């Protein structure tokens, strides 16, 4: 299997949440998501209740992945920042470390400059956290037990009925 394992402990999740909250207060954005490049949502802060964050994470990761390929085609290793401008809401995406994407959704109460400034600072802080995590996780590997797989298979039979 490719990719090295990464274990994020609750302490680090809390630290990341604090950083995101601080950033949101600073730049007055609506919400922030931290998304894995594979499309999994790591954590989120702000007003995310009205959002389908699962789909959003998958689409944003897809969008970033295609942008990365575009970058390669024009001879850039990566476009580190991506910005979508809407009528009311805008999305700012930036790379955190090597494997995550920081997504900030904001409206006209703030400006792209403010979001960019704060997102840049937060991305550096977050990438330090990820660095610590990857150093710390080492050989610790999480696993599912036999019971989980068995229970899941029973549940699947209930749900997937023609």
């Amino acid at each position, binding site marked *: 299997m490719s990719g090295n394992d990464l274990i994020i402990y609750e302490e*680090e999740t*809390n630290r990341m949440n604090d950083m995101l909250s601080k950033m949101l207060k600073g730049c007055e954005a609506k919400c922030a998501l931290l998304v894995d490049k*594979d*499309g*999994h949502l790591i954590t989120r802060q702000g*007003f995310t209740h009205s959002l389908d964050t699962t789909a959003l994470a998958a689409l944003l990761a897809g969008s970033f992945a295609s942008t990365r390929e575009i970058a390669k085609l024009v001879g850039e290793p990566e476009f580190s920042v991506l910005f979508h401008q809407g009528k009311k809401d805008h999305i700012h995406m930036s790379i955190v470390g090597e494997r995550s994407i920081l997504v900030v959704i904001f409206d006209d109460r703030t400006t792209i400059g403010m979001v960019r400034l704060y997102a840049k600072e937060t991305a550096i802080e977050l990438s330090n956290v990820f660095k610590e995590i990857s150093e710390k996780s080492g050989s610790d590997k999480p696993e599912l037990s036999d019971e*989980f797989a068995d229970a*899941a*298979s029973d549940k699947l039979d209930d*749900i997937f009925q023609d």
Partner: protein
Amino acid sequence: MVSINYSAREVCCKIVYYGPGLSGKTTNLQYVHEKVPSNTKGNLISLATEADRTLYFDFLPINIGTINGFQAKFQLYTVPGQVYYNATRKLVLRGVDGLVFVADSQPDKMDENAESLANLCDNLKEYGYDPAVIPIVMQYNKRDLPGVLSVEELNARLNTYNWPHFEASATVGNGVFDTLKMVIKIVLEKAKTASSSKLTSKSESSAEGNRPAMAGSSTGGTAVAEAPKVDTDEDFRPYPGGHTGGVPVQKAAPSNAVATATVAASSEAKTEGTVESNHDNEKSNIDNSTTMSEPKADVPVTPLMAPPLRRRGDGAKRGFFKRLFGIK
């Protein structure tokens, strides 16, 4: 690479439907979306062309509920089948946990099946996956059509890795759930061996006690509160940075500083460059001319050596050509 999020108490798997164009990958997802209970499914998102051909991917999240205290979530993706879209197809494979290869059972589609299968193996290898190891289920689709090849024949020609296989006709739903159930089972079986987990998040204090199977007995591992912490009423500012006036200054200062530094550096570089080039010119002159014995070392060779530009004529005469041609 099953993602086990211990703080949010979630297990998340990514399952990709692969196969040649028009083999029925999207139809599989549409059937699943149509048939599963509404509380278990999210929206089916289709990034398709106007002609309903998949352009990037289809995405369907499924949450089968809580198992031993953990939410089991599955993200079903399809890829664009057309050969042309290999770049985007490859992107969807990133971080995949299990695959369903949807093959078209019609005899005239065998070449396309084989080509797509070879492409799958290439793309998997590029990400470092081994097609013999990663969970893959083969689905022989369109069994309801007349004149399709027999399963034995299809197995012989396509199923070289001996993956589990199912007959299906996705339009009516035969075999769709069997395939999905099988791939999920293999993925979870594989996750048990623990060699494939990638991104997790768990409580440090109870790393052992909080495994999904043990969750029933353990009380630790509280989910991270995801309530919004931003209180805009309290801190509402009509203008960004209103009472934190320092921020824009902070923002401006470093950028200016950097800009100035860059300008300074570039001008220095320019000057140095010029000096060096002058030196070079001089050296070459010396080499070429045998009359000069040695260069005048005491005379500084800088751009200042160039005679100052002098304007010809006095103020009244200046701009003669401008006036002549009517340039303002």
